[in-house]
């Protein structure tokens, strides 16, 4: 990680007895779009505030281009933040809001207005330059906040759930805008969100946090296909987790005995030893449904319910001996052809390549 632009080194943050962030280290690469994702209270916003200097880490340090930011007040840092509440100045015009950062840097009025206006025009807000920010719509204000943070041409832009107040349609358009801006400018974006859709659609890498700790850092694809642990798998929610014990260890795969029978699981990188307890997951979109098994692993299950998600349907199946419902994702048309009624008995089957051990797990008898 020599190319890390920002290094977070052993950083933790305590507020009294409450620990918001625990001993966290990772690097942010130059020019990447990094999303920090987690449910509320996981420490993602605290992490962002520490980057901006609004909170000082309790331990560890943050380095920007190798320079420690320790003890540096927020107004001496070059890390503009786009607030969740936008935090636009209500007493200033749109143009003066955008130019605020330049004014604080001592840029003269003519130059300030020229550069602010250029940014407003780039974000299609030129006609609103002299308006009051309170007269703008949510999406327009959003872009003003973005222009205000970008006008000083920073190396890193911090964004704190900037789209959470927008309706779904507008949010999708802003995601496209943010992504293309980031590519065009080559600025590093650090984007905090609780939304999987936002993180997955924009980010090059995703940091998944839970209770002040980093659970996984990887590309959206590998977080989706290879969750590092049970928490990430449940958070992403596209898999069913089964529990068993290791019966046989092969080169490519292991055999695991579960309450519903023996199954083949692809081994991936995990170290496994005979007799060890093993959690593994099955990707919901790689399971086939029918009256007969179509793959080597199969269970007989009872169809419980389904949920539409656009052109895909999530099915919930009850499998005897398994606590959680088996989740299956099928294209809507395939589901339609099956003509299932709640209570119907079906056979769910999947290839061993659809089942994985958690990439970070060590399946040894002592663990």
């Amino acid at each position, binding site marked *: 990680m020599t190319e890390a632009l920002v290094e977070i080194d052993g950083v933790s943050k305590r507020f009294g007895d409450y620990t918001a962030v625990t001993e966290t280290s990772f690097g942010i690469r130059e020019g990447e779009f990094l999303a920090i994702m987690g449910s509320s209270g996981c420490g993602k916003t605290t992490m962002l505030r520490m980057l901006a200097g*609004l909170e000082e880490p309790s331990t560890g340090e943050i380095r920007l281009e190798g320079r420690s930011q320790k003890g540096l007040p927020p107004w001496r840092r070059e890390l503009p933040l786009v607030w969740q509440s936008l935090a636009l*100045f209500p007493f200033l015009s749109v143009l003066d809001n955008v130019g*605020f950062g330049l004014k604080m840097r001592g840029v003269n009025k003519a130059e300030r207005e020229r550069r602010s206006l250029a940014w407003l025009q780039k974000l299609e807000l030129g006609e609103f330059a002299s308006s009051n920010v309170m007269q703008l719509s949510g999406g327009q204000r959003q872009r003003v906040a973005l222009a205000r943070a970008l006008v000083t041409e920073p190396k890193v832009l911090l964004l704190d759930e900037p789209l959470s107040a927008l309706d779904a349609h507008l949010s999708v358009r802003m995601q496209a805008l943010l992504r293309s801006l980031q590519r065009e400018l080559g600025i590093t974006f650090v984007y905090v969100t609780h939304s999987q859709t936002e993180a997955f659609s924009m980010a090059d890498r995703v940091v998944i946090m839970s209770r002040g700790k980093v659970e996984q850092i990887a590309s959206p694809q590998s977080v989706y296909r290879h969750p590092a642990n049970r928490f990430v798998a449940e958070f992403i929610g596209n898999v069913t987790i089964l529990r068993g014990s290791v019966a046989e260890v092969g080169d490519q795969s292991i055999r695991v005995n579960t309450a519903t029978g023996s199954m083949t699981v692809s081994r991936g990188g995990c170290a496994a030893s005979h007799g060890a307890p093993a959690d593994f997951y099955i990707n919901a979109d790689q399971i086939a449904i029918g009256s007969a098994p179509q793959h080597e692993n199969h269970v007989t299950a009872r169809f419980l319910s389904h949920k539409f998600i656009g052109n895909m349907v999530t099915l919930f199946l009850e499998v005897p001996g398994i606590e959680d419902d088996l989740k299956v994702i099928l294209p809507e048309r395939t589901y339609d052809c099956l003509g299932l009624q709640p209570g119907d008995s079906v056979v769910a089957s999947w290839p061993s390549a659809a089942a994985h051990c958690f990439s970070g797990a060590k399946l040894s008898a002592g663990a």
Partner: protein
Amino acid sequence: MSSNTLRRRWPLLLPPLLWQLAFFLLPLLFLFVISFWSISNFRLQPDLTLKNWDFMLSRSAFWSAYGHTWVLALGAAIVTTCCSFPAACSLAFTVPERTRKLALMFLVVPFFTSYLVRVYSWQAFLSDNGIVNALFGVLGIDPLPMLNTNFGSLVGYVTLSLPLVTLVQTMGLAQIDRSLIEAAQNLRAGPVRTLFNVIIPLGKPSLVVGALFAFILAFGDFVAPTYLGGGAPPTLSNLIIDTTKSGQQWPRAAVVAIVMILTLVATSLVAVRLAYGRRK
């Protein structure tokens, strides 16, 4: 509240309405009427004459008292605002909420003692051989006359309005959205620039309303200019006392009172526009 509930509950509004009518609006009307009456044999005589208005408004003594009162009240508003602001800032931004609430409660404590007593006790500090001048003597500084000067009046005015103005400012500043202050700092505004570029513009309503309170209280006060300012040159309140004492000139005093009320109404309108007016 919907118009329907308002219609059903209007009797609840009766007591304050009647009170305002009986003890504010009617006396005000009476004051206005009296200003057109005349005095004969030291008795009020119903009349319809402009003599009193003509007499007061044509005298330079009235206008110099008016100017003096205006300048003193403006000075009181400025001095009180400046004295309160640092305290209000630290109460609003730096202390925890519990401490702030406690401090706001303590700000009410001065009102437990009579204003007159507080002003009298200042005499012990400000008189020529009072506590301050005694301290000056120890430090080798020549004694300064402070009692019976404009400075004395100002001390009295500040005593009167400081707790109230601090209260108003603190409540106003505490409502400022913290993320705006953080946003300014994030955009490289240091503490001083944040103060002038963000906190003062956002706190403007409470600063102006606080200053207006100080102005109104000082403009009508007669205790401070009498007992600390020495009554000379007279303020409008001193003038009212003098006018009623010399020959029972209630109609002329009424003229002064009405001019004062009109001045305060005009000042309040200007101040409210300044406080809440939209900036271009």
